[in-house]
């Protein structure tokens, strides 16, 4: 099924399936810092995100997890006064200083937000393929095929197959979030960023999304921000632990495998946090 994507006439989509070696590094962060109007929000983030794995960003409120995540697909670009320092490499290319446009980057690094945000004026079908349409894919057969595959991958196909033309607003919260996942998957991204994707959902919908993520990592590298320690330990392979420093800027305390972060962390603050002693 992957091959069908490469037939797209859009160059952004073409790139998406190239050079993927399991076990290799998908994204590298080198001394990444984000500041707003000169005030640092998060800094000192250096770690490698491995391909086809789930990496979670954990830490208490204000530790800069979401800020860091949003730097990875240049969502800060439109915020006046926002500045990203250091290097963020996607398959070796600097996403801020290389010859990659923000638009190309975002077709390769997808994002799912905290609250489900399907486009309310579009049908379920139109939502799923919206990213393809925004990037110039017009062929009906291709759109149909990708729509079905993305919805299947997001475990939503069975429940919406018969009502693809219905407004996306008719879906439940959990279904809407899976629709947003399908929408991001439709562009066949290399990396999927998720900003607390289950915080607005009930426990059952949360569980279904978690199961989905574990399946999805066969196709796509996942970086997820979560407040939920159990969630991080259940689904992620690697963990980055961030904490707010003395000057109220978040910083990376420890990056390791999830196993190590939860059972044998190097830093005592990591242990305190994962055991629920603060945060």
């Amino acid at each position, binding site marked *: 099924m992957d091959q069908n994507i490469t037939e797209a006439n859009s160059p*952004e989509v073409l790139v998406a399936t190239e050079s993927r070696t399991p076990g290799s590094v998908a994204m590298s962060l080198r001394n990444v810092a984000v500041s707003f109007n000169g005030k640092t929000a998060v800094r000192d983030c250096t770690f490698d995100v491995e391909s086809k794995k789930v990496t979670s960003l954990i830490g208490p409120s204000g530790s800069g997890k979401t800020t860091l995540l949003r730097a990875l*697909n240049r*969502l800060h670009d*439109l915020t*006046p006064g926002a500045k990203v320092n250091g290097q963020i490499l996607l398959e070796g290319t600097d996403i801020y200083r290389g010859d990659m446009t923000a*638009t*190309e980057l*975002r*077709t390769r690094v*997808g*994002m799912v*937000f905290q*609250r489900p*945000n*399907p*486009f*309310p*004026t*579009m049908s379920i079908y139109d939502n799923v393929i*919206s*990213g393809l*349409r*925004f*990037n110039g894919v017009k062929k009906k057969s291709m759109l149909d095929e990708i729509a079905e595959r993305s919805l299947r991958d997001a475990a939503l196909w069975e429940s919406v197959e018969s009502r693809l033309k219905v*407004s996306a*607003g008719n879906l439940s919260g959990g279904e809407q979030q899976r629709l*947003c996942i399908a*929408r*991001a998957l439709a*562009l066949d991204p290399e990396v999927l960023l998720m900003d607390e994707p289950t915080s607005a959902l009930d426990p059952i919908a949360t569980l279904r999304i978690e199961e989905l993520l574990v399946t999805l990592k066969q196709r796509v590298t996942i970086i997820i921000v979560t407040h939920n320690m159990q969630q991080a330990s259940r689904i992620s392979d690697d963990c980055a632990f961030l904490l707010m420093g003395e000057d109220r800027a978040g910083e990376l305390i420890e990056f390791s495998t999830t196993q190590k972060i939860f059972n044998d962390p190097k830093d005592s603050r990591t242990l*305190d946090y994962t055991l629920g*002693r*603060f945060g």
Partner: protein
Amino acid sequence: MNPMDELTLTPSLTVTHDTIQLIAKSHRARRVLISRVVTALCLAALVISAVPLVLLLVQLVTRGASQLNTAFFTTLPQSPTIMSPNLTGGVSNAIIGTIALTVYASLMAIPVGVFAGVYLGESTSKFASVLRIVAQTMAGAPSILMGLFGFSFVVKFLHVGFSAIAGSFALAVLMLPVIAISTELSIRGVPNTLREAGLALGAKPHTISTKIVIPSALTGIVTGCMLAVARAVGETAPVLLTIGGGYINQWRPLNPVSALPLSIYINAKSEYPSERAQVWGIALVLVLFVFVVSLSARVWAARKQKRNS
């Protein structure tokens, strides 16, 4: 280590539970009284403001309805004479003129106003904030100014003369800021999360505007346009100085036309009671016009809203 270990309760309170309850009880009684008085005052204010409106509508319907018949809508006005003082004819010229003026004015004001509003809503530039102040000032300007502007610019400066186009130009200037401001508000009402969703899917800013933001704001934009149209239909001052009037059925842009508000203005000054009575019929038609336009805007918006949720 664990912050919870340090928590202890402060012993021996001097203020007892009963004291607090006693104060709270008398406070509640006072609140209930104040609440009742304020509610009554609000209700009284509502009645006071509704009374003139209801009286007006009752008078409009009772005195206007008797004027309405087929001839009223289909025939031209006729001047009463001493011999036949009850001869008034119809107001077909004014009805045609008002429709023509409204259509031309909408064609001019809606595209420009909507685009300006989208710009105001999406841009954060200095120019946009200056433009916003201009629009807000224009929206509050007396409508006779628009009439003067239409007169001096289109009638005189462009040498078009009294015409439908001069009148609709003046009305369009009146509608423009109303449309721009309501469009801007609708655009700003679109949640930023939708813009971000578009960005994250690799959409460029113009794609986000046209494919996500404007469709999401469309209900508000259309409602704003319809309300601006409804307002323009009933405006007298801008047309008074620009359309020239006339007693033939005329709709062509470059010719003088009549209009319902103008007919009211002229007939109200008539020395014949029959023509003065006809004013109520014209006013009723005008109000129905406005009512239909704004009602259909609201019904459309409500239906659209329901479909999207």
